[in-house]
């Protein structure tokens, strides 16, 4: 799915423009501490040598128990709506969200899976090729937190080891406050570290942290895609010896022609 091209649509809305690297939620459970894009990535974006990355989308899979609010979280982010009525997701659903990250168009394809056991056999067919796995749980229901490990295990089984960013997301933050919230978060952070996941608390109802969270997801996925693309192309260059196609960071300034060639190089 990652190799699929996206149509170049209208410009993305202003709140989907990510210029600086979005920060983590808590330093106690985060995937990386950097506050800026990787040097190579920034350079590639500046010089427009991100290859086909701008035409691709990253696959994000959201898993977790039923009624924790996976669909609500996605709908809050993609449509900025919140529905109080619960409606079980049938099998899977998806949304495509377009970003502009460091000047490069980038899209997330967010797969919303059913939490009901009876749909597991359908939803699990959609786990494959995920760049990001979001395991969601209900902050007010400790059992749903305990189940996240199983959900993650199922999702990871369909993907290559170490190929996915993992997020642990506590939902319904608006229902907790003060000590109860701290307690729930502490437990979640503890588990997140075991899962090698980044932890976030969100509320789809109030919208708290929802945009920041998905921006973080998008930026991490984007950066990884650019780095992988650069690496792939440099290894291709070494094999094929076709050095003209690629301009790496630190290469002599490019002419418009060579820039054009490299941006089309992998189409």
């Amino acid at each position, binding site marked *: *799915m990652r190799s*699929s091209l996206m*149509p170049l*649509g*209208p410009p993305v809305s202003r709140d989907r423009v990510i210029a600086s690297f979005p920060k983590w939620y808590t330093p106690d459970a985060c995937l990386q501490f950097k506050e800026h894009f990787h040097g190579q990535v920034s350079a590639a974006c500046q010089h*427009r040598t991100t290859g086909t990355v701008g035409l691709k989308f990253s*696959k994000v899979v959201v898993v977790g128990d039923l009624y924790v609010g996976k669909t609500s979280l996605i709908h809050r982010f993609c449509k900025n709506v919140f529905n109080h009525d619960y409606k079980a997701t049938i099998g899977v659903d998806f949304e495509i969200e377009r970003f502009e990250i460091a000047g490069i168009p980038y899209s997330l394809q967010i797969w919303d899976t059913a939490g009901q056991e009876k749909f597991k056999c359908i939803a699990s*067919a959609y*786990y494959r*090729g995920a760049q990001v796995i979001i395991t969601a749980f209900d902050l007010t229901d400790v059992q749903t937190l305990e189940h996240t490990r199983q959900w993650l295990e199922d999702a990871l089984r369909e993907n290559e080891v170490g190929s996915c960013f993992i997020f642990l997301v506590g939902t319904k933050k608006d229902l907790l406050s003060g000590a109860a919230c701290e307690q729930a978060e502490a437990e979640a952070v503890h588990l997140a570290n075991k899962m090698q996941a980044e932890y976030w608390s969100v509320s789809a109802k109030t919208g708290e942290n929802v945009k920041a969270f998905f921006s973080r997801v998008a930026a991490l996925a984007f950066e990884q895609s650019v780095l992988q693309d650069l690496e792939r192309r440099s290894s291709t260059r070494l094999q094929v010896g076709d050095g003209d196609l690629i301009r790496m960071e630190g290469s002599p300034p490019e002419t418009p022609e060579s820039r054009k060639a490299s941006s089309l190089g992998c189409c």
Partner: protein
Amino acid sequence: MEEPPLREEEEEEEEEDGEAEEEGPEGVLGKSPFQLTTEDVYDISYVMGRELMALGSDPRVTQLQFKIVRVLEMLEALVNEGSLTAEALRMERDNLRQEVEGLRRQAPPAGGEVNLGPDKIVVDLTDPNRPRFTLQELRDVLQERNKLKSQLLLVQEELQCYKSGLIPPREGPGRRREKNPLVTRTSPASSNKEEKTIIRKLFSFRSGKQT
């Protein structure tokens, strides 16, 4: 020839019975042959023995008497066999009835449902919400929905391009790429080709299985 003395012994009994039973020994000949008992056969023997004796000691009568006794013996055997068979069948029927009642008592009280064992469910065919579609059918519907949704997103974006003036109304979709600053100018032919590729890729996008 053994019969007559036997009958004579019974004579007293029969006469006693005769007082109670209006029909008497003669009435037994009016019975349905399927309801005959061995007792009835003996009654018939008695009646016929008496009549034969009344005919005197003509040797022809004696000869006929042998044959009649033989026929009555055959009738007795048949009736005897029939009643034994009927009794056996009656017993078997009663046993089966008891067995059925026992099984009915064991079955769950709810509507007398049949116990299907584990991993089985009973479907109420009159329930409008009963399960009736297969998993594969649901998969197919979902795939089709996903495909249509991706097409809808594509169309919505294109519509937005027209609305925002990114693509002038008279220009075809194949040329819209040239307006985008991020894409290098290409000839209309290759641009069209690229558009087709994108659409084809989006159309072929299903369930993420191909990644």
